[in-house]
């Protein structure tokens, strides 16, 4: 009898773990494609300022990304290229391509609560984290994601709420190593793009006292998955060519 119970418990944990991994895998599949085109609107609010940006982004896999700023008009035409862990920027006003040194890449990206590292590394949830189911309420599954041994991410854990109806994110809370909340990402307005379900509104709010009142909102205005992107986008020439 005991043996049966034990086996059952063992099997169910295995099942749970399996479930968690599967969920994450499906989530990532949703979020990424072989290539992705997206048009994104960003609203950044700090204690003192508020501004809005519109950008277009072309990405192939995790290592290649080309981004262009459409608005505000001041920044229109500025392009970025991420290639093989390096980053370049083109500014039409001064007609110059500038290589961004790693030290600057790792700091706050344009005043948002993202770091360049977020943009560049985009660590894989599947590869870098071990997932465990904490709770299941209807179709919403709460997962606890703990970084795998020796993975270079700064988070101690991420508690992620996922809607298993379409395998989309609902809410992520990022914790530091001491279990303190550092930031929260909330997702809403799921839309279907091809075979992908994407939450089109993402709100980032930091918990740190000094950053109280900050809020970054990201809206995906348009997205295309696996439609093929010309490889010409992922070259230094692209920076100038596609700036117009």
């Amino acid at each position: 009898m005991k043996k049966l119970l034990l086996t059952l418990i063992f099997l169910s944990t295995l099942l749970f773990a399996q479930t968690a991994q599967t969920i994450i895998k499906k989530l990532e599949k949703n979020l990424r494609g072989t290539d992705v085109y997206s048009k994104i609107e960003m609203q950044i609010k700090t204690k003192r300022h508020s501004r809005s940006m519109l950008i277009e982004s072309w990405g192939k896999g995790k290592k290649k990304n080309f981004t262009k700023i459409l608005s505000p008009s001041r920044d229109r035409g500025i392009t970025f290229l991420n290639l093989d862990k390096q980053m370049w920027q083109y500014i039409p006003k001064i007609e110059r391509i500038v290589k961004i040194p790693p030290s600057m890449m790792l700091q706050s990206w344009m005043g948002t609560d993202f770091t360049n590292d977020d943009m560049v590394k985009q660590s894989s949830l599947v590869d870098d984290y071990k997932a465990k189911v904490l709770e299941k309420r209807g179709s919403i599954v709460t997962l606890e994601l703990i970084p795998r041994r020796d993975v270079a991410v700064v988070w101690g854990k991420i508690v992620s709420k996922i809607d298993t109806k379409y395998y989309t994110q609902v809410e992520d809370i990022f914790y530091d190593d001491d279990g303190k909340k550092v930031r929260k990402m909330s997702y809403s307005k799921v839309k279907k793009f091809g075979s992908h379900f994407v939450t089109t509104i993402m709100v980032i709010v930091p918990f740190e006292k000094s950053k109280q009142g900050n809020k970054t909102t990201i809206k995906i205005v348009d997205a295309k998955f696996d439609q093929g992107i010309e490889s010409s986008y992922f070259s230094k020439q692209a920076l100038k060519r596609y700036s117009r």
Partner: protein
Amino acid sequence: MSNRYRLIFKLAWLNVWRRKARGVLVVLMIGVSMSVMLGIQGLYDGMTNNMIDNTLRSDSGEVSIYAPSHRLHQSLKYHIKETPTIIQKLSQIDTITAIAQRVKVTGLVSTAHKSSMAKLIGIDKIEEQKFGEFEKFIIDGTWSTQKNYALIGKKLAKTMKLSVGSRVVFSSQNIEGDLTSISLRIKAIVQTTNPAIDDIALFVSLAKAQEFAGLHLGDSTQIALRIDPKANLAQTKEKIVTLLPYKDIYSWLELYPALEQMQEMMKVFNGISFFIVMLVVLIGIMGVMLVSILERLREFGILLAIGQPYKNMRLQVIIEALILGLGGYIIGAILGGIVLLIMQSYGLDLSAFSDGLEEFGMASTLYATIKSSYFSTTLIAIIIASLLSVILPIRRLEKLNPIEVIEGD
């Protein structure tokens, strides 16, 4: 012969203590001044030596070897290859007492809350322990650079709000120029009082740093050497240059000219205060001897009149001065010795000023060094001062006219 000297000595001794209080005062003066001076000398020397020692132990050693252009460009491109072979070659030079190879990469250290500039330093545990007793730098935690363990400099830990057990991510460019990151767990906190280390260092194993930087086994960015302090540094450096003609080789004097200057300044400073004290000792003894002779003019006159050779009296006076001087020396040596021993073991606690001191690379407790030269130099100086001090009194004695003295008052 010896009887005569014994008599003179006895007379000298008795005369010195004729005015007990006076004699005691002089001896005390010499003794106390000497002990204070020894204390200060020991403290200042201790402070300078400490600073230099910490820098050498924690970083450059007496001599450091780099690949050409590395120091200028600070790039991984310029690194030393086949380090073990070089170390083998260096073992030919017997004045080299320890060798440590290092792989250093500058980058960014981050936590979920903060980022700051840092330097990843790959070290070999055994080499470092022999090189500079690295273990003594550890103020918290245990030394382990296995796996992903790292040791962090005290100031960096403070800036990033880290403690033993914290985890950090270090990111930088490797030799290919790619952005690379690793996760490290802090196993210990290190304080060397060398700001170049304490402010930014993250120590990991040599292998880990090589792996991170994209270097091969046997590559390094710096080879640091400890040289036997009794050896001639310049000569040893020459030998190394001849042995390794295609490397940049620097002695610590070239790497830290300010430290050398400080050492020189301390010498000058100690010399000056030494001189001042001796000068005043001289004046003190001279005053006492002068007065004591003036008091005994009549006595001396009588002795001369009854046939006592002048030589004997002069000798007596000299011995009196020496007794005072040496008496003072003995007291000074004992008191000074005690003061130095206390300062050496317990040190002077300046922790109220620790922020300012750390800025300049000094620990908040200063320890004194004790050198036998303190005592020997002072002994010679006091003897000289004592002898010099009686010149004037003896002159007075020479001019003595026995008859005048016995008659008049």
